């Protein structure tokens, strides 16, 4: 995550500590390191671009305000995702109270990160499957969706996810297995069809 890049000579915690002393550049560096990861996670959690941007700003705002307590934070990467996850959870619960409807994913500002290989038919099938998976993920229960996004989309380790969600690693694994099985149940007819082609 934030520390993984070779260019990140300064650690997240060091930047965070400098932020607490009013160093605006340090805070901007933190934002640059995490904004895309956080936005991708929030966007898939709430399935709404405007809401995700607002939650991203709220997350970074909270991070800045909490910089005075920087000495209490051991793992910055996990902590910043915990802040985002809590905000996403609050938003989903607020939304559930207001409206039970599931929001569909916006198609705007999607950035494809991998080359799509294969024949046009395979590409189309792959694209269709992605769309269906996106919709199926957004229809998962909150606890399964969160684990699935963090593990299978964001590629985090079980330890990181357990730390972010404050649950045991075994719970992360069992939730992930259930999330995958539920997705498979929802996508079963379509995935079978893809296999036949």
């Amino acid at each position, binding site marked *: 995550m934030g520390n993984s890049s070779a260019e990140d000579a300064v650690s997240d915690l060091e930047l965070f500590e400098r932020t607490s002393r009013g160093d605006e550049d340090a805070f901007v560096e933190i934002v640059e390191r995490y904004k895309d990861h956080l936005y991708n996670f929030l966007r*898939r959690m709430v399935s709404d671009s405007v809401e995700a941007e607002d939650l991203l700003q709220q997350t970074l705002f909270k991070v800045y305000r909490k910089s005075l307590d920087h000495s209490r934070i051991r793992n910055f990467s996990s902590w910043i995702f915990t802040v985002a996850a809590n905000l996403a959870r609050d938003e989903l619960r607020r939304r559930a109270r207001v409206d039970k409807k599931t929001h569909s994913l916006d198609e705007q500002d*999607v950035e494809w990160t991998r080359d799509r290989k294969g024949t046009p038919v395979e590409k189309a099938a792959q694209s269709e499957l992605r769309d269906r998976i996106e919709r199926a993920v957004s229809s998962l229960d909150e606890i399964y969706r969160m684990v699935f996004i963090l593990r299978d989309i964001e590629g985090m380790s079980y330890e990181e996810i357990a730390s972010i969600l404050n649950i045991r690693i075994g719970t992360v694994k069992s939730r992930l297995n259930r999330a*995958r099985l539920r997705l498979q149940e929802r996508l079963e007819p379509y995935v079978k069809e893809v296999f036949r082609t």
Partner: protein
Amino acid sequence: MRCSKCVLLYTQWKDGELSARSGAELREHLAACDACRSLYARLDRIVDVSSSLPRFSAPGAVADKVIARIRSCETVPARFSRWLTPRLAYGALAMVVAAALTFAFFYQPGRRPGVLVAGADTKERIYSLGPAVESTELVVDEPDYSLNHAPSSEDVIYSLPSLPVAARPASF
């Protein structure tokens, strides 16, 4: 191995965390069970495609927006306190000065405020209530004690109930 157990082991199998014995049992089951083998293949495909889902990029200038938000939260109270503090100080000072002037204007040495002072000609004055007040204006209606009945609340009529001290009639 039963299918219900096989379903629960997918994630462990995918992560290579199964023991040698469990792994061997699972492989044996998958070789014999078409449904589970198909299920595992579908799960594999979903996991693979999920890892290559398009990534959303954060909108531009998010850092600027957050910093503007931080500044607005920090500067509003500071600006407010800069505006409020001298005004509160001047207001408090003005109240103290006004109280001192009021006290100096009404204070007369040797006379306690609000004490009734009777003069030789039964003229009475009340101090600290402003200009001199004639005692006749302050005399209350007294009950008629010539009547042979116990005094009641109706017998006393205070003509100036707001005054702190009532003057007694000279004949009492």
